[in-house]
């Protein structure tokens, strides 16, 4: 197996970088530039198609760039279906999921990291054991559980499974374990309660962990399709992902409208990613390297 050396030699000695060192990066450009284009091309086609008239999309032979830009796809999108409502639903579901994750996982993580109480080990082992259970195994009984509680076809059905997660509790616990105990003890000396210590001392330090958790939760809840597909039938309660699925007619597909919907469904997270790339990348890498 020949892989390029994951090197830093060009970085380590910039002063002695001769012509050889300066030439080397260009080799990587030859690989990375076409690859980047390849990765962005589908996104470009999505955006372009959403502005292309359907007549032109169906023309043969097809062209990548249209002769004129039309926004009719977007206007049709919002008049044909309650898309604004779907986006609203997604925002409600994700918003509740993020806020509830931040609160419940902070509380739980802090308890399992720092407080001692009867049954702590039992509770923690129970949490640990749930992390291996795949959602697919749970969807059938969860559907019937929600159906008996009268939750199917309510917005609550969409967000209740995202209220908290074992992963989130672990993430916060791991972070709280790394906070120096002396800081908390100082807070206690100054007369803070347990809640006070958490809110005034620990949480402000935990901002990176909280950001990570918020991004994870946002990605998961906004992008989920399987659960709303099962739990929601009323088109008024669709999330945007479910609505997207609905635009795929059985026979005829209005591609311009569908791609416009795709843009609308993906744009918030893509724009969020471009503006907060550092946090996003940290979030992803945290999951793998630091837990």
């Amino acid at each position: 197996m020949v892989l390029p050396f994951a090197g830093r030699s060009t970085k380590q000695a910039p002063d002695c970088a001769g012509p050889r060192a300066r030439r080397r990066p260009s080799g990587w450009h030859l690989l990375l530039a076409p690859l980047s284009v390849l990765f962005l091309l589908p996104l470009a086609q999505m955006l372009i198609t959403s502005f292309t008239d359907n007549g032109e999309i169906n023309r043969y032979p097809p062209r990548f760039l249209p002769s004129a830009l039309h926004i009719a796809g977007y206007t049709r999108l919002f008049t044909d279906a309650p898309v604004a409502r779907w986006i609203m639903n997604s925002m409600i579901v994700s918003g509740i999921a993020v806020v509830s994750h931040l609160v419940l996982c902070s509380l739980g993580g802090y308890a399992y990291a720092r407080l001692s109480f009867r049954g702590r080990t039992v509770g923690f082992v129970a949490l640990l054991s749930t992390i291996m259970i795949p959602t697919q195994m749970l969807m059938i009984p969860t559907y019937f559980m929600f159906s008996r509680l009268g939750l199917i076809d309510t917005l609550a059905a969409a967000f209740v499974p995202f209220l908290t997660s074992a992963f989130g509790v672990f993430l916060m616990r791991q972070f709280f374990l790394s906070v120096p105990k002396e800081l908390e003890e100082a807070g206690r000396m100054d007369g803070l309660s347990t809640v006070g210590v958490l809110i005034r001392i620990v949480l402000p330090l935990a901002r990176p962990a909280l950001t990570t958790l918020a991004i994870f939760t946002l990605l998961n809840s906004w992008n989920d399709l399987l659960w709303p597909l099962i739990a929601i039938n009323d088109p008024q309660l669709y999330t945007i992902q479910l609505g997207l699925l609905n635009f795929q007619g059985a026979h005829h597909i209005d591609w311009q409208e569908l791609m416009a919907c795709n843009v609308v469904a993906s744009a918030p997270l893509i724009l969020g990613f471009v503006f907060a790339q550092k946090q996003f990348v940290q979030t992803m890498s945290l999951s793998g390297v630091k837990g």
Partner: protein
Amino acid sequence: MKLGILLPDRERVSPRRPRSAKSAGAVPGPPGPRHTLRRRRLVASLTGWSFALPATLIIAALTLFPAVWSFLISRERWNGFTPPKPVGWANYQAMAHDQDLQSAVNHTVLFTVLYVPVALLLGLFLASALNRKIRFIGFYRTAIFVPLVMSAAASGILAKFVFDPQFGLADNGLRALHLPAQGFLTDRHQVMWVIALIYLWGDLGFSVIVYLAALQDIPKDIIEAATLDGANRRQIFRHVTLPSVAPVTLFIGVWETISVLQIFELILTTTRGGPLGASQTVVYFIYNQAFQLSRYGYGSAIAYLLFAATLLLTLGLLAYSKRTKREAF
């Protein structure tokens, strides 16, 4: 992207972290009568549980309880309306003769076996490429990471357009190169390959990011020392880089295996298992059996089988790596 399934042991990966919080909390109070001590303990327990209970209770209610119920359903014949009929292990026995399930399993296993090594190799390769201070590196990283935040539904629908035989970008490119147009998603010999390609587009960024973080964690002085000792680039890669990223490789391998075994949304939005069941996967099969055909007992049995297989595979991999102390790559 399925997150929150597995966490590597943090203590193992970064030994600088404190090991345990056993000694935390419960500052011993001043010596007093026994009942105040008991009361103190009670207050501590109540405080602890009031913090821990909401999350713990919700998670238990949404995972442990349904997991047990799922097993009970798997031993019943049930259409969701009429009372369930206990059938013992019949649902599990039925799986052995189900040709459609067999092919769904085959597709899923083949996909996993093909996809995971590619995600590891390409991920490490690209992470090495992106771990450089060259011009436009920010642009390159953004381009490769952006598909990560797109939902499987959106990328599936987009892929359906890109691989459309009539106006898709893919066949257009082939035509421009004077190559014969392909059926892609409509060709049952090509469909799984195309889906793997789409999945790679949407998911490769994850292994690249994790590898990139691991590469940047390698202390510079180790590489400097190796260079001083006269190691060439390939030797440094072999003896410094590879061992350093080995734990992360195991993590990505397990993570990717779990997510690939659960592939569903992409199938739903591109082919719905077609043509002729050629892209049927296990989770799509479960969804179809339960929520389309109302065979909840059978669906639950297959879901349990999937869970058992995932668990065995993951535990096996972890045990193997623990025993050999050398992560498989």
